[in-house]
């Protein structure tokens, strides 16, 4: 098993949609990612298909299409078998250390135990991730040197 990349994050479709439509903790969490060019957001096409469909259903298809266009510019694309869970499989295939989800079943001890043999993936709620995210420590651990501060506008 390869070590997971602590600077790589997967947000399941519910978090991606909540980031766009609901704000709150999901947006706080993904703002950490958007603020730092060295933190990756990984996602498969299947995961984005799910999120786009939900945005289209709850808001409008034009917004969903524009969101898809934007997120595709930024994500690290990964591929996985069709029947796999898009969030878990995206995390597994990309070697991400964090999977953000509102789905309690993914955060259960049972799921955690079943995933641990494959990789050290941490499944968290966006709120927990947002509070625990320590950019300075993460930068020192992954890039080395002193953390220079955010290098991107999260609204750009």
């Amino acid at each position: 098993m390869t070590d997971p990349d602590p600077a790589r994050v997967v947000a399941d479709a519910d978090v991606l949609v909540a980031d766009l439509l609901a704000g709150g903790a999901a947006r706080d969490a993904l703002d950490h990612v958007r603020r730092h060019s060295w933190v990756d957001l990984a996602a498969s096409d299947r995961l984005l298909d799910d999120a786009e469909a939900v945005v289209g259903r709850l808001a409008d298809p034009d917004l969903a299409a524009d969101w898809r266009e934007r997120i595709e510019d930024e994500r690290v694309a990964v591929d996985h078998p069709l029947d796999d869970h898009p969030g878990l499989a995206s995390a597994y295939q990309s070697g991400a250390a964090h999977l953000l989800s509102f789905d309690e079943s993914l955060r259960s001890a049972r799921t955690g135990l079943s995933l641990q043999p494959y990789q050290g993936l941490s499944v968290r709620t966006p709120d927990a991730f947002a509070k625990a995210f320590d950019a300075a420590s993460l930068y020192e651990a992954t890039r080395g040197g002193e953390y220079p501060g955010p290098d991107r506008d999260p609204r750009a």
Partner: protein
Amino acid sequence: MATTTGEAVRDRVAFSAGEVTGALGDSVTVLPIVVALGATTAVSLPHVLVLFGAFQVVWGLAYGLPLSVEPMKALAGLAIAGALTAGELAAAGLLAGVALLALGAVGALDRVATVAGRPVIRGVQFAVALLLLETGLSLGLASLPLAGVGVGVALAVSLTGRRRTSALAVLAVGVGLAVAEAGVPSPTLPALAPFESGAPTFTPAAVEGTVAQLAMTVGNAAVATALLCSDLFDSDVSPDDLSLSMGAMTLASVPLGGIPMCHGSGGLAGKYAFGARTGGANVVLGVLYVAIALLAGGGLVMAFPTALLGVLLVVVAWQLGRAAAQSDDLFLTAAVGVAGLLVDVGVAFAGGALAYRYLRSRRSRSDSHIGLHSGTVRVRHRVRSLLQSDPFLPRRHLGSRMTETWADLFERADESSVDVETVRETLRERRDD
């Protein structure tokens, strides 16, 4: 300024066939208005054209892009309609120039657009269109048969799918008739004198016109043009850069006998549609304007048929009115426009801005989240729809570089009140299917 400073000048200023035809794209917007100004006011057309030519070259070389140089349409329209004298036009130009320099220096453009409210800005456009329409109709009555010829030419050109050039076609017919009557003029250099068209007169009307024009310039000339520079030329020109150059240009132009000028998005899109890709189109158009200026003095402008001038103004009014019809709030836009025609453009603008603020404050909490980005978002959508509806523009320019900012996306999403539980439930349903 543009981020193309490292490129060779030859890459930024080319002289291909596309640059030559592209130069026409801007003149379509400029020539009908400045000729009408020259014919109906004390403004000196040769001086105006020389300065348009000079600044075409200046900005073409400075930005390396076919940036447009257009008259400030609200001020020009008010002057043509007689609501501003030439002196008031000069004063309004100086005020606008100072304001644009200040706004560009402190980076406050988006804020101004938001405070004014786009439906109100559209209303000002509509008011100017109505004033031009009224003036055009009264001039057209001078000779109904000739006006009929002008309308026929405009309609014929529009029916061939070249709607943008219909005003230019009417202008060409008018120039032809003027030359037939007055003869081919001998080239004359316009004399250099300060405030050739009259000393600036600072009146309430000049101030009102300035405020109304600034509201239009910020949205249409600064923000929309910056977006087009990015989308069509992948060039990083900020609205504040454009504001600074418009301010400097107007402050330099007005004392030398010119009129207030701006970088309109319509002219830039027109140049692109006609093939321009570099600042070379500006150099070509600059030389062309100066050449026309040499011939535009004397009796040629006075010989321009009044009825055709009326048709020209109606066509320009129609084009301005169509832009105003893109408003998000047609009722407010129409109210501002009609009040501007019947009462006063400045009063209509102030009243419209107050009404806009009041209507906004009554909206739901979710709408009240719409903040400083709303102007940019709507302009971006307008630019997108402009590009998508333009048959001249290649499809490849509607691709990935039109992606929106996160701020834009979040603002649009604000309109749908969705909670996390609904998101989870909807996703669960999809994945269970």
